[in-house]
């Protein structure tokens, strides 16, 4: 960012700022967008095959749950398939073998994912960065082999023909169109839980930890407890998504616990926009629709996915939604720059003055030479 825009921005803030006005309006915009999205989805089955829509919604919830952890907690898990896939087995098994009602089976899947998240999270948060990712990957592989070997999962066959029992005994979900609205409700509930978490006192601390963990500690926060809480929430909602998917496809299989599935959710989140509220939904839609469109081309889907991933990383670092938001902010910044900027002269000191009076020649932090990054 240039010096000019700093001045412009400070001009903006010093003219007519209300302490709480803007963040609150940002939250309202998000809710309005979500309401429009849900409204659009309620009529979508008129045009789009409901099974495809349900698949998108399940993956969108999965990606949103994943995004809570990486986008707001700064924790890259490379093993989230363990929650998604294992919850699918749990709901499939409890519904088919134990005769659980559908809603209870889905909740059981989410609950088991929460417990699994608590265990995996307690182990993984002891490490940081790439080591954290590796620990989650290792744990997910253990879950994968457990699912491959355990008698109740049906091994290579998975759990098939999971019955669709009426929800609450009255809503007949044997018809796809009815099930679609149930899935939409689950998705909306899951999304709102995540949205609330992001915009909560907890979310504030979580973001602070993402931004600067050492500083958060020095402010007295026991950061590990916050990370664990975020991990468990993310695991639970990933489980909710996986359990719902098992009901939709009447199938729980090994595909959903593979490391490739963990990779796919990373891809969806990155393509859509990590750390944005709606990015994961867009990313999930793009990837699922693409997979669906290209099924005829076999393995070429993977090549296309790889290309999208490379393009995203190279050209749209912020993801689709991230880039749109950044563009909108730039626009707003330019509009507000019109009135003459107000700034104090002290900010304009030339960089050459920096370090001039320092007695020692010790190298300052790298930030000194570039006081304003981004």
């Amino acid at each position, binding site marked *: *960012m240039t010096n000019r825009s*700093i001045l412009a*921005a*400070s001009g903006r*803030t*010093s003219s007519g*700022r209300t*302490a*709480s006005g*803007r963040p*609150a309006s940002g*939250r309202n915009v998000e809710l309005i967008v979500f309401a429009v999205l849900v409204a659009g989805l309620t009529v979508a089955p008129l045009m789009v095959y409901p099974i495809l829509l349900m698949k998108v919604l399940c993956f969108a919830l999965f990606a949103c749950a994943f995004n809570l952890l990486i986008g707001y907690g700064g924790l890259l898990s490379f093993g989230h398939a363990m929650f998604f896939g294992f919850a699918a087995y749990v709901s499939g098994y409890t519904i088919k073998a134990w005769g659980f009602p559908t809603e209870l089976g889905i909740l059981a899947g989410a609950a088991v994912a929460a417990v699994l998240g608590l265990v995996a999270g307690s182990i993984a948060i002891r490490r940081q960065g790439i080591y954290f990712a590796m620990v989650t990957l290792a744990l997910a592989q253990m879950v994968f082999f457990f699912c491959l070997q355990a008698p109740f999962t049906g091994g290579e066959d998975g759990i098939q023909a999971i019955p669709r029992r009426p929800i609450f005994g009255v809503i007949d979900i044997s018809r796809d169109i009815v099930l679609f609205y149930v899935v939409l409700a689950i998705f909306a509930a899951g999304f709102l839980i995540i949205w*609330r*978490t992001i*915009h*909560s*006192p*907890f*979310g*504030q*601390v979580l*973001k*602070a930890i993402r*931004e*600067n963990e*050492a*500083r*958060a*500690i*020095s*402010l*007295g*926060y*026991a*950061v590990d407890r*916050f990370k664990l*809480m975020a991990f468990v*929430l993310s695991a639970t909602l990933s489980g909710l998504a996986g359990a719902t998917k098992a009901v939709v496809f009447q199938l729980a299989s090994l595909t959903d616990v593979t490391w490739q599935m963990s990779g796919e959710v990373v891809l969806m989140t990155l393509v859509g926009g990590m750390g944005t509220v709606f990015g994961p939904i867009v990313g999930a839609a793009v990837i699922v629709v693409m997979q669906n469109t290209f099924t005829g081309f076999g393995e070429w889907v993977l090549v296309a996915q790889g290309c999208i991933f490379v393009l995203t990383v190279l050209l749209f670092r912020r993801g689709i939604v991230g880039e749109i938001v950044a563009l909108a902010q730039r626009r707003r910044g330019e509009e507000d720059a019109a009135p003459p900027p*107000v700034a104090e002269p*002290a*900010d304009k*000191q030339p960089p050459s*003055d*920096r*370090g*001039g*009076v*320092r*007695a*020692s020649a*010790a190298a*300052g*932090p*790298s*930030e*000194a*030479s570039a*006081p*304003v990054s*981004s």
Partner: protein
Amino acid sequence: MTSEFVIETEGLTKEFKGFRAVNNVGLQVRRGTIHALIGPNGAGKTTCFNLITKFLQPTTGRILYNGRDITAAKPHDVARMGLVRSFQISAVFPHLTVLENVRVALQRPLGTSFHFWRPEGSVEVLNDRAMELLEQVGVDAYADLQAVELPYGRKRALEIATTLALDPEMLLLDEPMAGMGREDIRRIADLIRRVAKNRTVLMVEHNLSVVADLSDRITVLARGEILAEGSYAEVSSNPAVVEAYMGTGHG
């Protein structure tokens, strides 16, 4: 709570794979003073700092805070006891707004920091207090800006406001002037003097004119050990100190 020294270390030693970064340091920081820790590069100043704030665990030795042994405490615990540190590289939360930076520090006493189901509006009651703190350090005009957009000197001011939000009994400032221009140095020095009024400050600083100007007492470290201690006049006329600085090419 009434002991003369806020911080006392006894035989504080830290080894990294056989290398003694800090060796048998007995530091005493008197209540209500600004105490500076200086020394040539590699003297162990920052290590000392990390030991006192518990970001590092000492190999041997004890640390007393108000007469209480905190050697085994966790870093977030000592922060809650009122021992709050800053960092060498300005420690703001870059993609939170300036207001949020301070508010997140004010938020912990509300006891709702784990409440992921509670609306964000519930912490907005702290906005006024946060604005007061921002005003104190002169960055209130930037409240809605992301912290990353602030010029460097303002970031440091924001960091101090965030630290003050905890109303700490003791501030530990790690090179508060690092990488700053003349104007900023004057402003931050004034700020430190102002906030030190009812507090105790321990700071690591390279800028000797700032040290001379601000500190009541100075401890000189060299090769992990205390070389000299006293007022600026005493320390700067000490031949061992002059040699330590000259010997490593610093003046």
